[in-house]
């Protein structure tokens, strides 16, 4: 495993301080992918994306090309781009929205052309005030430039884009909750299957929902060809991916890395990436793909950064965020805080998630704060089992959406990896790290 010299696809422009402006975008090849796409047939553009085998960069990792091919034919269809990034420790879309909004817009316009959609939305997390302003400004400039709006670059293709602000709710990153929110409602996920957004989506019409980073890859794919993208990475994990690295590393940050070719060890320890653990302390554990993912220990460091590789090892690459915890970390506190997050963000539709998250949070709280009881570990696992039967990976689901089954992994991982520390909390009546 090593850090390769693969081209930077989505972060190519970010060394420039003015990377968010139309001027810089045009000076660095911006909107050339769109011009090329408009000379091709929509089907040819879609088949380039299919050839790239681009996996969705939101968290579920569904192939974008296949998602597109599932879009039901209908006179009215929509493209909705998900920029509601709220998975804890994930901050890659934040970077792309603030620093290169035109790249996302160009990806959207090309995708809309391939799908023959004439109305698209980009839903941006409300807490990204600067990102929203940058995106609105980029959109205004793109309209003036003729890259969006009526008769784009005199091609006869027209598209309208709306920048839609969220208002603070993690669950709206779930694609059907996002559609509900975009319709002006509470962010309640919809029941699926049988009907996915590609069949019944926004306003009941067929809708493609893609992540911001997925869109940011599209201009490069069209410019350089799907085969060039698929040549990067390995197996099902093609191209590069933007990893958000945080926690106890020397250089936390978002790093674009070729998929599969590098390992977690490279990401955390390579001098050009994470730079190792602060104070050269020992690695205790790391979360490989957002807080919904089961934790890994030092024995997993040499796993490649690939979707299937991480999946087979019992966790997920998920949202591409890696949280590093060193030897000074209290695993009970970490796992309690993650549980508290899910408790707060549960939308409340399904009983196992709504009630279970609260019970789990209260038990975790009392263990961390000195009120733990001997039977609490069994009780925790029992409640987890009611939310996600078997508490295994990939998880079973008793709820409408995957928020419910995302609650047990951090508790189950904490208990299985650090059972003795949980017991010390209970026996000593408090946190030994305090």
């Amino acid at each position: 495993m090593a850090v390769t010299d693969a081209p930077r696809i989505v972060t190519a422009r970010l060394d420039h301080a003015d990377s968010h402006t139309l001027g810089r975008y045009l000076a660095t090849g911006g909107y050339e992918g769109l011009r090329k796409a408009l000379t091709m047939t929509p089907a040819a553009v879609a088949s380039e994306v299919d050839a790239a085998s681009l996996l969705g960069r939101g968290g579920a990792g569904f192939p974008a090309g296949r998602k597109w091919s599932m879009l039901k034919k209908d006179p009215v269809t929509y493209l909705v781009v998900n920029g509601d990034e709220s998975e804890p420790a994930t901050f890659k879309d934040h970077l792309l929205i603030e620093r290169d909004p035109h790249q996302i817009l160009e990806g959207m316009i090309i995708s809309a052309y391939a799908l023959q959609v004439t109305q698209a939305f980009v839903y941006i997390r409300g807490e990204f005030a600067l990102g929203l302003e940058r995106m609105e400004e980029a959109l205004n400039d793109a309209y003036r430039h003729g890259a969006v709006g009526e008769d784009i670059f005199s091609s006869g293709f027209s598209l309208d884009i709306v920048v839609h602000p969220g208002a603070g709710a993690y669950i709206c990153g779930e694609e059907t909750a996002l559609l509900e929110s975009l319709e002006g409602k509470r962010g309640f996920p919809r029941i699926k299957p049988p009907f996915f957004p590609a069949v019944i989506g926004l306003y009941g019409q067929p809708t493609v929902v893609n992540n911001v980073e997925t869109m940011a890859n599209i201009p490069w794919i069209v410019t350089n060809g799907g085969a060039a993208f698929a040549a990067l990475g390995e197996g099902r994990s093609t191209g590069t991916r933007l990893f958000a690295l945080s926690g106890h590393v020397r250089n936390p940050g978002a790093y674009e890395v070729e998929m599969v070719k590098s390992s977690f060890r490279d990401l955390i320890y390579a001098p050009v990436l994470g730079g190792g653990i602060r104070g050269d302390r020992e690695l205790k554990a790391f979360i490989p793909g957002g807080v919904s993912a089961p934790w890994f220990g030092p024995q997993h460091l040499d796993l490649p950064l690939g979707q299937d590789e991480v999946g087979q090892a019992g966790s997920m690459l998920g949202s591409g965020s890696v949280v590093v915890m060193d030897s000074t970390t209290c695993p009970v506190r970490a796992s309690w805080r993650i549980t508290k997050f899910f408790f707060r963000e549960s939308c409340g539709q399904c009983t196992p998630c709504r009630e279970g998250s609260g019970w789990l949070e209260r038990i975790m709280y009392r263990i961390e704060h000195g009120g733990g009881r001997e039977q609490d570990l069994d009780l925790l696992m029992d409640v987890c089992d009611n939310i996600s039967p078997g508490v295994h990976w990939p998880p079973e689901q008793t709820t409408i959406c995957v928020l419910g089954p995302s609650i047990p992994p951090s508790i189950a991982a904490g208990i299985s990896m650090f059972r003795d520390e949980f017991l010390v909390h209970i026996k000593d009546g408090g946190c030994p790290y305090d």
Partner: protein
Amino acid sequence: MSHFNATMATRARQLVALYPEARSALLPLCHLAQEQDGWLRPEAMAEIAELVGVTPAEVRGTATFYDMLHTEPVGRYLVSVCTNIACILDGATELLAHAEGRLGVRVGSTTADGLFTLEESECLADCDHPPCVQVNHRFVRTTTAEQFDQLVEELAAGGHAEDIPPQGTLVRVRRTGGLRVDRAEIARQRAEAAGERSS
């Protein structure tokens, strides 16, 4: 009698026109109302209901789902301190406790002068600058107690007006393009942009 002032009322109508279905404008209109009033007044919710064709209760019922929409008054500066996983590994608990002491309020409360509201927030997606703090949803990157105190002092003295607008003001950039804008106006803007490029 409109609750929105003349400028806001115009913008409200433009927002509704932007969407295929009016109700989609509900969240943007709530943000607009907060830009005018700092929070969601009942009168504003009633007017939003009228604009998008639902009942005032539906507006309230929707708004209360979202953390950023406030159905009670908040301070001029909403200070959000993240304590989620990446931040708690790097001093968020301590910074939040310090913020309570410095502002003299508990989490969820507003200072007596109405200037600051302190909230504990979930992950704000700026995890490479922990602990993450936002003021009125602008990332301020005050990661130490000293930096936090200095920012509070500057805000209290009326500083940072350029980069931190009052609570409620989310997006200061106005949309100028789009199919629902007058076609002649689009042609004019494009001609103007072409002229700028050739000159």
